């Protein structure tokens, strides 16, 4: 059967903005990147994707990323925007399994007609996201979300892929997430567009914010905005929303990032296909060159025919 026929039903449901079809499409991207690329390009050829604004939320484990998103998204719903949310948690390097727990913090949003939430496992990707994320963003744009919000895995100092995937990155910090020395070691400080100190309902937050302000004043090359919020008590989050909307208006078309994204998509495409080939390949009797040639042959077979 031709792929067009095989996915006809799915594609037409997708175009009718059926969330179940979007959900299936995302699974297809994760499981079968070769077919999903054909579908994505068909969707884009049939109608131009929405120019969704992509907001990344990152920060150490437990700083309150998911709780923040639950309150942040509600603000956009007031103005009837359509929001797609992607929540990424780490896969176990040993079992390959994952406990996807971010959704628990925003379960009330589940039944909101303008919201779609999807939990994903990182599946071995090391940048804080998953390899499929760029393709998933493409289908979410085609689905027509005004905003796409992406939560990274609990990120440390090197999980900075969110910078390429998103138009705007919020780094969430918490007064209980270590002292300022640790925080400013992190490469992640440099990629964020603004800093949000969450949990200002905690007494220790005052000291922490002063430390942050002192640091920002002393670093001439880091001119970034700092917000204090309590996601638990829903305080201060509206200020961030207003500021981001201003940034969005002023944002220039980011040609440089778009070119980088294209390259990463291609790279991840090959990684996904090759990983699938290797899983099913017996390596016992072959030396490394035979194996390489074998993979190359299968790779051409897998993606050939176009």
């Amino acid at each position, binding site marked *: 059967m031709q792929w067009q026929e095989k996915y006809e039903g799915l594609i037409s449901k997708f175009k009718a903005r059926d*969330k*179940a079809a979007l*959900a*299936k499409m*995302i*699974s297809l991207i*994760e*499981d*079968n*990147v*070769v077919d999903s690329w054909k579908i994505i390009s068909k969707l884009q050829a049939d109608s131009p994707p929405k120019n969704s604004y992509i907001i990344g939320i990152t920060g150490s484990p437990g700083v309150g990323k998911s709780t923040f998103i639950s309150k942040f998204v509600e603000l956009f719903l007031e103005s009837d925007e359509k929001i797609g949310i992607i929540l990424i948690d780490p*896969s*176990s390097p040993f*079992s*390959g*399994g*994952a*406990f*996807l*727990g971010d*959704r*628990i913090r925003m*379960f009330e949003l*589940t*039944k909101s007609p303008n919201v*779609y*939430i*999807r*939990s994903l*496992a990182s*599946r071995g990707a090391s940048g804080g996201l998953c390899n499929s994320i760029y393709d998933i963003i493409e289908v979410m744009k085609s689905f027509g979300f005004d905003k796409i919000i992406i939560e990274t895995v609990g990120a440390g100092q090197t999980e900075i892929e969110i910078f390429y995937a998103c138009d705007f990155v919020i780094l969430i910090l918490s007064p209980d997430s270590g002292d300022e020395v640790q925080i400013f070691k992190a490469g992640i400080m440099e990629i964020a567009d603004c800093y949000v100190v969450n949990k200002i309902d905690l007494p220790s937050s005052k000291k922490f914010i002063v430390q942050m302000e002192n640091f920002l004043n002393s670093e001439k090359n880091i001119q970034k905005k700092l917000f204090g919020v309590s996601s638990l008590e829903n305080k201060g989050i509206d200020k961030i929303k207003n500021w981001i909307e201003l940034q969005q208006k002023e944002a220039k078309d980011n040609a440089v990032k778009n070119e980088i994204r294209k390259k990463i998509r291609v790279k991840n495409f090959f990684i996904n296909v090759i*990983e*699938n080939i290797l*899983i099913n390949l017996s390596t016992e009797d072959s030396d490394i060159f035979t194996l390489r040639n074998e993979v190359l042959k299968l790779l051409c077979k897998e993606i050939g025919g176009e």
Partner: protein
Amino acid sequence: MDKKIRVMIAKPGLDGHDRGAKIIARALRDAGMEVIYTGIRRTPEEIVEAAIQEDVDLIGLSILSGAHNILCKKIISLLKEREVEMPVILGGIIPEKDIPELKEMGIIEVFTPGTSLNEIVEKVKSIAMARKV
């Protein structure tokens, strides 16, 4: 291609007993599955909608409150209404006499206390894989 099993472990109703659900979620994760846990006190509507958005291969309900008949019936009928085919299994404190009726309405398996985790993992795998192909 490589297909990971995705399951949702859900706690419908007012039941606050979550130890069993968490143990099952952990066991399935350790068996290589991707597990979405809903947390406690979810409505049948929320569970079905979340399962659809997450495109899981199986829904595992955990109910210790005694309200299993009503909750399961509601969830199964919502799935039918939405025209999604998703296997549903159930675990918790379920009296032996209720099991035939639950299976009749479409619950595929029922697991009561004392079932080994290995057995649960194997059953979940085979039920979920059956949906994948």
